[in-house]
């Protein structure tokens, strides 16, 4: 008799598709995962869809339209467990830069016919709309953490995604600190771990794509970055990228927005 496998659904909101692609990028684990889980709704991968409810929903992307604000409610109703994947879904993503601007002005830059554009004035995280059971960070998420999260779900335990800063991973990797060693600005001290300190390993400062760590001290880091030569505008911009709308980064960017 066939086992009853938990049903997985993957949903897309405003995003680049990169985080759901991470699932297809698990080349070594994909077929194994597909053996343990019934892929019931994953449009990027298959035409076949199974009606809900779903045991596990992975949600990529942010809410930027009224239609999507309603759709996420439906997704939540159909999902026993809901995990957001990536900076778009957990913090509004790069498209949340509109939250600091007049969205009509933005639209006018890109499009000729403003009346054709349907969009909300903001890009918001999924958790601003519905209850989220777990958030996987990163732009993009790491495949390693994704596999860990799915395995933890299958085993009924909590996923292990450490809350410390990139600096800790950087030390574990044995890197020379680019800030101390070369005076290169780095967001590592305030950024959530998960990438394995990728940027410092390539001689570049962290740009914060995993968003703020728990209890970051951004004002203190900004003071250091200022000493390394970053002016107010540069400080504003460095916090305003892929997690611009995450509280700690938003507040710090606003402090430098004259």
């Amino acid at each position, binding site marked *: 008799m066939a086992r009853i496998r938990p049903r997985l659904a993957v949903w897309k909101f405003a995003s680049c*598709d990169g985080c759901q692609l991470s699932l297809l990028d698990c080349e070594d684990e994909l077929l194994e995962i597909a053996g343990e889980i019934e*892929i019931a709704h994953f449009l990027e991968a298959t035409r076949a869809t199974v009606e809900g409810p779903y045991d596990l929903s992975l949600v990529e992307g942010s809410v930027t339209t009224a239609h999507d604000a309603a759709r996420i409610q439906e997704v939540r109703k159909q999902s026993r467990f809901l995990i957001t994947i990536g900076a778009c879904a957990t913090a509004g993503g790069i498209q949340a830069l509109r939250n600091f601007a007049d969205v009509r002005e933005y639209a006018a830059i890109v499009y000729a016919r403003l009346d054709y554009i349907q969009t909300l004035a903001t890009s918001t995280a999924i958790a601003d709309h519905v209850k989220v059971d777990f958030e996987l960070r990163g732009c*993009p998420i790491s495949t390693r953490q994704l596999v860990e999260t799915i395995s933890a779900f299958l085993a009924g335990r909590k996923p292990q995604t450490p809350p410390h800063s990139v600096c800790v991973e950087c030390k574990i990797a044995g890197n020379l600190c680019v800030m101390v060693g070369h005076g290169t600005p780095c967001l590592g001290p305030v950024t959530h771990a998960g990438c394995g300190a990728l940027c410092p390993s390539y001689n570049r400062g962290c740009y914060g794509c995993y968003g703020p760590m728990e209890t970051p001290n951004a004002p203190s880091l900004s003071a250091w970055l200022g000493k390394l030569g970053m002016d107010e505008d540069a400080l504003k911009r460095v916090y305003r990228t*892929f997690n611009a709308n995450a509280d700690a980064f938003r507040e710090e960017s606003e402090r430098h927005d004259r």
Partner: protein
Amino acid sequence: MIVKTIKVDQLARVEGEGALKVVARDGVVQSAELNIFEPPRFFEAFLRDRMYSEAPDITARICGICPVAYQMSAIHAMENALGVVVDGPLRDLRRLLYCGEWIESHTLHVYMLHAPDFLGYAGAIEMARDHADIVRRGLNLKKAGNAIIALLGGREIHPINVRVGGFYRAPRRRELQPLAEELKRARDGALATVRWTSGFDFPDVARDYEFVALRGEREYPFNQGRIVSSRGLDIAAAEYDEHFEESHVEHSTALHAHIKARGAYLTGPLARYALNAASLSPIAREAARDAGLGPVCANPFRSIIVRSVEVLYACDEALRIIDDYQEPERPAVEIEPRVGTGYAATEAPRGMLYHRYRLNADGKIADARIVPPTSQNQPSIEEDLKTFANAWLDLPDDALRHRCEQTIRNHDPCISCATHFLRLDVDRGG
């Protein structure tokens, strides 16, 4: 009058969100629409006032499937504006990075998005139940492409190691060696892929496209070349805006790119192959010949074979670059900000991608324009549907719908990267 409407509300196995609608009257297709309902993300707007150096990281986020294409186009356009030429080993490393993206993205399309159509499966995971070895071959091939990007770029999606002027860190020769071993296996897998796809059953159709692609002096194009077409166009990227335009089409929900005064054109594998087949490597040329492609392939369903040939070429080219690689003295050339406008076009896996930036004296972006491949191909995709669907109207709805979906997937449209696709509400009345 018999009216038949075929709708697919949510297109599967494409990147992003789209729908299609074909309307027929008395057995003749009247209209075909590919609708994009991807919400707008305003990239061109929020690039304003950012530093030139931030563009590669930001534009990468337009698309998770082909971030390298966005990074490379932005970087080349910036270097064009700043009067910098990057040559030698750094140029080769960029070609190598692009090889990785072609292998990864094309293989994803061939095995996971497109082949299931020909073999009658809903997707690759369903296909794996009967053809596990084939799907595994595809996954291994894709992994080899990703391995290149991960090594050179730091990670597969949104690489972190590229910059205007070069790289943050250039790899050592010995770091590339394990990659060479993996790529040799991948090249065998790619050859097998060409053989496999050329055995599929293809509808016997063709169209007289105007093909548009880059053409390098002697290489199959990735980052550089003139923009040429099968009807005589031959221009520099800087002249793109003089010859191409985007417009609203009344029955459509998206901006469409056209060649001025001529209309729809096609970019992507079919176009690159038709305009550059002579500069493929011998092994790729031979495989194309054995697969029966001829000098020009005008049947879009056979694009899966051309894509496979390009994967084979990219494996071969990557091996050549690794073999010849000399470590550069510095990972990047110096950049001095200055006022200027820069243009670049590169060959994303799905087709040509055009970027234009105007820079201020302090290095900040004054204006940005990005034309992704899907926006350029969309009129041709709709014309494919209009032309081909007439012959399929007698099929049962499901089969017809599937054929129409396939017609779209032939071109691997990447809907998320459609930076200025828009949703149209015709009757909103202001």
